Structure formats: C-alpha cells, structure tokens
C-alpha cells in the first residue's frame, strides 16, 4: 500500500488536495497514516490555540485618530485651489527662510574633539537623535509626494529642494553609522537617500503618471515603512541625556 506523504496530509488538513475522498478513504484504512495525521492535527491545533493579545474595543477609533493626523490635512492641501496652494507654498517658503536664517544665526558647531573623544555609547546616541530628526523630515517630504493626487502636472520644486538638502545632510549620518558599525541604520539611510536623490535630481514638475511611479516605488521598496521602523527604534534608544541642546546638530 502506498502511504500518504506529509505534503498530502497537510493538503488534506487544509482541504486543498485534489483527491480529498481518496486521502480520506486511505486514512480510514491505514492506521500508520492515521497516526501521522493525528500527530499533524495536534500540532496544528496547538498552533491554532496560540492567542493574539486583546485590543481595546475602541482600537479602530484610536487607529483612525493616528491616521487622521497624516491624511486629511495633507489631502485638503493638495486638493485646494491654485490660489491657496501658492499661499501655502509661500508660507512654507517663508518658514523655511526664517528657519534657515535662525539656524545660521544660532548654529554652534560642537567642538569636534569633544565628539571624537566621546565614548562610543554617547556618540551612538547623538547619532540616533540626529538621525531621528533627519528621518522625520525625510518622511514629511515623501508622504507629501505619496499623498499628492493631482489631475494635472504638479510643481514639486519645494520638495525637490528639501530632498536635495536632506541628501547632503544624510552623507554625514551614513558615514557615521558605517563607522560605528550600525549597518542596519546605514542600510535604511542608503535606501532613503537613493529615493531623495532621484527626487532632487529629477524634474521640478511631475505628471500624475510620474507621481504614481514615485508612489509605487515608495511602496515597492517599503521606504515609508522602513523609515517608521527605524524611527521607532531610534525613539526607543534615545535617552534624555542624548538630546542635543537647542540649535545644536551633529
């Protein structure tokens, strides 16, 4: 008598084999296969019993609260009429100018020897704080592009400029991460950097189809998810003592 293979038993358990009746008949007649099948059933039933933690009844509402912060405001911005877009873009540009002016005025480079002499743990924490900030700003640029849903070509010169700034900034973080052996951080930074670089070097106006390509790429490479994962890791590792003084950057 030909016995049933493990694969056939598994397919029978899930009701997916071609000859369900044949396998069932064989199991009725063959004690050896029946014993094997019983063992398989017990293992799979044991796995079935592994529970998932309870979530609060209002979990769905909490998910929506978090999502809403990301979605509607941006969507409204993109859907707004051209006049409001210019007002918003002007305000954003003015904000950037003010921030750049303030940064230039109050920026104090930390003395290099102090960083060089800092112990590796402190150096890593400083890197994480800076990387966390960098990731947050990269995420904002990418989410804006991913959420844009225009019917006509879209002017992305502001995002392009921000992407260019972020690319020049990331080089230092990637080098530091590589130097400290933090290959996971370096790998995500590489992925983000490639996308930002393409945006920075690309055209300042994107057609809906080109935006869709950007969106698909972000999804295919899981860029936003990677940023979120690394940001969450970074947040978990940041200690309060690692927070840099106001205006101080790596």
């Amino acid at each position: 008598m030909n016995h049933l293979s493990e694969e056939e038993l598994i397919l029978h358990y899930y009701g997916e084999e071609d000859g369900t009746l044949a396998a069932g008949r064989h199991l009725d007649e063959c004690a050896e296969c029946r014993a094997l099948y019983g063992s398989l059933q017990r293992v799979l039933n044991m796995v079935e019993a592994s529970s998932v933690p309870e979530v609060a009844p209002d979990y769905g509402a909490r998910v929506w609260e978090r999502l809403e912060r990301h979605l509607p405001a941006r969507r409204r911005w993109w859907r707004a009429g051209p006049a409001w877009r210019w007002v918003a873009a002007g305000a954003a540009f003015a904000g950037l100018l003010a921030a750049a002016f303030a940064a230039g005025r109050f920026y104090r480079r930390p003395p290099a020897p102090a960083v060089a002499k800092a112990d590796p743990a402190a150096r890593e924490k400083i890197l994480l704080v800076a990387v966390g900030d960098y990731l947050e700003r990269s995420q904002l640029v990418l989410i804006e592009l991913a959420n844009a849903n225009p019917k006509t070509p879209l002017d992305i010169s502001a995002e392009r400029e921000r992407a260019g700034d972020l690319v020049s900034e990331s080089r230092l973080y990637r080098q530091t991460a590589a130097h400290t052996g933090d290959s996971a951080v370096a790998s995500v930074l590489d992925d983000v950097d490639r996308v930002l670089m393409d945006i920075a070097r690309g055209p300042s106006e994107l057609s809906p189809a080109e935006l869709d390509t950007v969106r698909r790429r972000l999804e295919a490479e899981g860029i936003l998810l990677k940023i979120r994962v690394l940001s969450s890791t970074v947040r978990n590792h940041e200690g309060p003592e690692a927070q840099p003084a106001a205006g101080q950057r790596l």
Partner: protein
Amino acid sequence: MELTDAAIVGRARAGDADAFRCLVERHSHSLFRLAFLMTGNRQDAEDVVQESFLRAYRQIGGFDGRASFGTWMHRIAANCSLDMVRARRRRIDCPAPEDPVAELPSTGPTPERIALSAEVRQKVAEAMDDLSPTERTAFVLRHFEGMRMEDVGRVLECQPGAAKHSVFRAVRKLRRALEPLMSVAG
C-alpha cells in the same frame, strides 16, 4: 440599516473621509490579529495596521472591487507585515519579541495547567519566530486566515506551487519544534 463595505468604499473613493474612518474602525481588529500573528510583536502589529491603512487610503482609487474590501486590506496588511519582518531581521539591534504569554488571559484552572499552557504558547511563539518571513506569511495566511494557496501565492507574488511549498516547510518546522511538547501537553 448598516451599510455594506462596498457602499462605504464607494463613498471613500469619492473623498468622504468619514466613510474611510468607518472602514478603518470596521477592519482594524482583524488586521491587528493578522499583523500580530505575522510579526509576533504588538508594537510592530500596530505599526503595520497604520501603514496598511495609509497604503489603502492612497490606493483606494485603484480598488476595483473584484475582491471584498476586507480581502484587499488583508493582502495589503500581509505585505506590510512581510516588509516589517524582513526589515526587523536586518536590524542589528532587534529588541526581543514581545512575550505574548504575558498579555494573555489565564486559561487553565490550576497553576500547573497555567504554567504548562504558558510554556506551550511560548514554544509556539518561538517556533513561529524561527520561520522565515515567507514561510511565516504563507503559513499565517493559509492556517489562520483560511486563504487558498492561489491567494497566498498572489500575496507573496509567487506561483501557487511555491506558496504550497512555503506552507509545507513551515508546517514541517513547526512539527519538529512542537511535537516533543505533545506528550507533555497532551
């Protein structure tokens, strides 16, 4: 009368944020369950749920309604979970997976039974963690979500035969890890 998902999706596609909220509230629990089974970690599962809805929000214009909204969301969440597990494996500083046992309600009447049950669940969690991301995804979709192999293949972007073999490998690994417990737990 409660509206069907299809009706709500129609409104969400027209830009009705309240309609999308309704879909989020309806499907968050089942997506969390799927994401937890695939990631084995509560925080990761919550991140996956959020990311899945973000993707759905962006793609809802392209949702053609051939599958139900729930099936479509489960596919997105499975892909997000797969990305999450792969990304986590690449992380050097991977925090230990959350202990699912600590969050579970007690199930047995005696301390011995509780301890045994907890140990079994711990072993199941460890055995699941030992599966590769693809094996785990294929197994969770087939075993817990009841997807046919063809659908599992679609999520994994592979042939049904390859999906089948991922399930076989997963079951084989789980048997190897868990069969020794059978005599104790039985």
